[in-house]
Structures are given as C-alpha cells and as structure tokens.
C-alpha cells in the first residue's frame, strides 16, 4: 500500500541550524497494517509523516501510495487518498465554521468543488448518525462552531473527518499528545474502532511506548532519522515496555537515560 524508499530530508541545509531529519529511510507498509511509530524528540517521526502527506518535498527518495508515485505531488493533490489528524487539536478543523460544515468539507475530499450547496440535508442525516457513534453528544450540535468544542471533541471530530472518505492511508501525528490522559485514552479507543470498522492502513506516531505497544500490529522505532527497530506479528504482541527499552539501547548504541524519560 505504502512504499517509502531512500528518503532524505534536511532542514536549513548549509546553516548552523542544519538538521538531517531523515537519512535514507525506507519503509514498506502492507494493506491493512496498523503501524505505530515511536521515537524520541527529533527522531524524524513527524517529518516522515509530513513527507508522506506532501507538506514538504523530500530531498531524495520516493513515496508510492497504492501504486501511484506521489513524491512530487503537492499536498492538496495527495489529500484524496489520505486522512490526517494532527497533534494540535486546532490544526484539523476550521474553528469558525460549524461541525456539519467541517464534515461537509471533508466529505468532498477528492471531488471537484463547484457551485452546488456546500452541504445538503441528506448529508446532515449521515453526519448525525456518524456523530452519534462518537458518543459525545455532538449529533445534536451540528451547527455549533468547532471553536467551542474541547480538545478531545475536536480530535474525535477530526478523526471522523479523516476516515469519512475511507482513505487508503490514515496518518495520525501524535494526535493524543495534547490531550489529558483520560481523553487521550478515549480518542485512542475511538481510533482503534474506526481503523477496524473502515479497515484502514494506518501510521500512528506517538511519544508513548505503552500506546505504541498496545495498538496496531506493527511497531517501528525511529532514531536520528532512521528506522532502528521494526517489530511485527507475534513478536509485537508479546512486546513489553522493558523489552522495547532494552532493544532500543542495543539498536541505537546510545545512552538511554534521557530518551527513556521521554518515551515512557
């Protein structure tokens, strides 16, 4: 489904702030895989997701989604095949617009937009049914401005918008990092549910080892712009935080104390 090969990305090349975010990164994701991506700050997790989404063009390498080479496509042209949820709950929605208007924008992803009404009454019924499954009471507040919702409600809505068109790829960039633990848990449960229901190929970046282990069927760990661990299948199911930390230490060959605090 997703083939990333030989990806390089350097920020601020030639300045004192030069940062090699991705170094010859390759990744092959099968259809239906739910991959959790873990790593410390600056490991390149978000850069990888942003390169796949087309936010920045990579310096080298190529990205193929379902047989189509998208490496040089701008962000909005890739959007039809992917759903995205961001770390910042403000990022995924238009705050001055209503819940239904936001859903309607997502519902037309990949379609030509013309002078037809931006939202129809038939869609409204669909949105109401879908919002009901979130169990947040949003189904009765269709015209409420999204800016008035809490961070958790916004992320749940963004998730729904991301999966609404059954994308080939779901990209979650630390989408629970800005939420309190209880809300984060709820959003993660919802994520699992939606991924299963829509049978989505998913990449989920997270800071949290436990979440990375508990969710998905495959775990990759990034360090310094590379993938240093790739654990799948039975091995992934048996994985514990301790084991993961030990393997990280061996794989990266670096002192672990600092990153350990960050990851757990």
């Amino acid at each position, binding site marked *: 489904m997703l083939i990333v090969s030989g990806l390089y990305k350097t920020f601020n090349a030639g300045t004192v702030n030069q940062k090699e975010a991705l170094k010859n990164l390759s990744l092959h994701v099968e259809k239906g895989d739910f991959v959790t991506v873990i790593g410390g700050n600056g490991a390149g997790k978000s850069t990888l997701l942003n390169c796949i989404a087309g936010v920045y063009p990579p310096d080298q390498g190529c990205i193929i989604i379902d047989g189509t080479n998208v490496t040089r496509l701008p962000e909005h042209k890739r959007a039809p095949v992917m759903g995205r949820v961001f770390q910042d709950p403000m990022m995924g929605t*238009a*705050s001055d617009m209503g819940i239904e*208007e936001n859903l309607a*924008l997502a519902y037309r992803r990949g379609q030509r937009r013309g002078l037809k009404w931006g*939202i129809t009454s038939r869609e409204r019924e669909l949105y109401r049914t879908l919002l009901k499954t979130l169990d947040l009471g949003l189904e009765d507040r269709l015209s409420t401005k999204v800016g008035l919702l809490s961070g958790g409600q916004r992320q749940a809505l963004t998730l729904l918008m991301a999966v609404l068109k059954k994308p080939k790829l779901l990209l979650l960039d630390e989408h629970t990092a800005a939420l309190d633990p209880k809300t984060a848990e709820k959003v993660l449960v919802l994520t699992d549910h939606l991924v299963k229901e829509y049978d989505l190929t998913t990449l989920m970046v997270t800071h949290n080892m436990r979440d990375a282990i508990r969710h998905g069927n495959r775990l990759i760990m990034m360090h310094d712009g590379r993938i240093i661990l790739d654990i799948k299948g039975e091995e992934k199911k048996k994985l514990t935080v301790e084991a993961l930390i030990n393997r990280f230490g061996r794989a990266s060959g670096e002192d672990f104390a600092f990153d350990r605090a960050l990851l757990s």
Partner: protein
Amino acid sequence: MVQILSGAVSLGLLWAVMTIGVYITYRILNIADLTVEGSITMGASIAAITMLNGTDPYVSLFLALLGGMAAGLATGLLITRFKIPPLLSGILTMIALYSINLRIMGTSNLSLLKKKDFSEMNTVYTPFESLGLDRNEAAIVVGLLVVATLVAILYWFFGTEIGCAIRATGNNPNMVRAQGINTDTTVILGLVLSNGLVAISGGLIAQSQRFADIQMGTGSIVIGLASVIIGEVLFGKNGFLRRLISLALGAVTYRVIIALVLKMGMPANDLKLFTAITVAAALALPVFKEYLITLKKSARAGE
C-alpha cells in the same frame, strides 16, 4: 440637515459595496488587502473613460468589475505563486495601479460632462432622476438595489462548495489543504471577487459624483475597515446574512458620523486622522477589555 443626511446615506450605500469587498479579504480570507486603494480608483477611472468614449453606463460598470478582478488576480498571484507577504503584495499592486490608473484616464482627473454643452452625461442614476428623484435619492435607490442584489448573491455563493472552501481557507489553510483543496486557488478567488466589488463601488461613486480622480482611493482601506468594524459592533455578527447586512449599515453609519462631525465644525482636512484614530481605537478594544478585566480581578484580590 436632511440634505446632509441623505447625502451621507447615499454615499454610504455606494461605499457599502466596497465595504463588502473589504470584508471578504479582511474577515473571510484573513488578509488585510491594500489593493483596494488602487482598485477603487481603477473602477472609477475605467467607468469614467469608457463613458466619455460613449459606452453605456451599465457596461462601463461591468468593465470596471473586470478591471478590479484583474487587480485582485495580480495581488493573488504575488501572494500565492511568489510567496510575497499579503500586506506587501497589496501595496505593490496598489502602487502599480496608481500608474495604470493615470494611463487609463490619461490625466489625474476626469469630469463626466459632455464636451460640447457641458451638460451631465447619462449615468445609472439618470432613469431614477427622470422619475423626479433628486441626485441623492436616486443614488440611494440604486445603492439599495445593488447592495441587496450583492448580499443575496454573496449569501448564496459563500454557502456553495467553493464558497465554503474560501471561508475555511481564512480559518485554517492547513486543514483546507488536508481536505484536498488548493489554497492558492481559494485565496486568488477571494481576492478577485473582493477587488471586483471594490471596483464596481468605484465606478458607482464616479458616476454619482460625476468625476473620477486619481486620489480618490487614498485611505479607502481604512474607511472600509471602519465600516466593517462599526457594522460588527453596532449590528452584530451572528449569522452570515446578518453580517452582510451589518456591513451595509456600517458603511452608512460611518458616512452619517462623518457628516455630523463635519457639520459640528471639524475641518475636513482632519477627516483621515479622525478615521484612523477611530479604527485604531476599535481594533484596540479587545486589549482594553482584557486590561480592564485584569484590573478588576486584582482589585478584587486586594480586598
């Protein structure tokens, strides 16, 4: 006094068209677009020169619209294709338009009088004047018709798929791109629409005052912003239709205020200073409010 008021109301309605244009960029796209200073003059210039060359007054307004749209397109391309900051892009087009407008008119001031007998030319107001209305009344009727039509069209347009995409762009361009919309296109569309309206406004004003002048756009962005803000403060901003109507009311209120201040004896030369201070104060209002709230809180804590 009645004469002064009807003059203010008619002028306000003609400027309301421009205010709606400013609202599209300033509030919907979240861009302070200075192009309008040039495109309002451009609308006046195009209307004046084409009418002097025998064009029908309605057609001349249409040509003004096209000119304004081209100006908006220029600014839009500077912002999106060349990544020049919006404020600077607007200034660049505005400055360029100064020369272009002089070229269009061939001079810095054009009067809409017939050369041979110095009688006034036919304008879009003439049919209503021939019904027995005076100049201001005719302008009020035309202004109301134009504003009502535009409010209806824009209310529809911003409810369509494209309109929704433009509204979302000013809100959160990242989200809009993630939904597969090219934000370059939506920004350009908004600017084209806005400056087209501003140019129509310029054309209507030129036909009403029966001249076009190269200086008439100076400070117009501030007048537009003042009208937008007055409209929001006095008439509310709940619901899109209400907002659109409040823009027209804001533009009229602004003109009435100006007429009253002038009547009370303020020198006309101080007008722009007065407007600038009003807008600055209105924009600073949230800061004052916050300051007052913290002041109250600390006072309460001190008790």
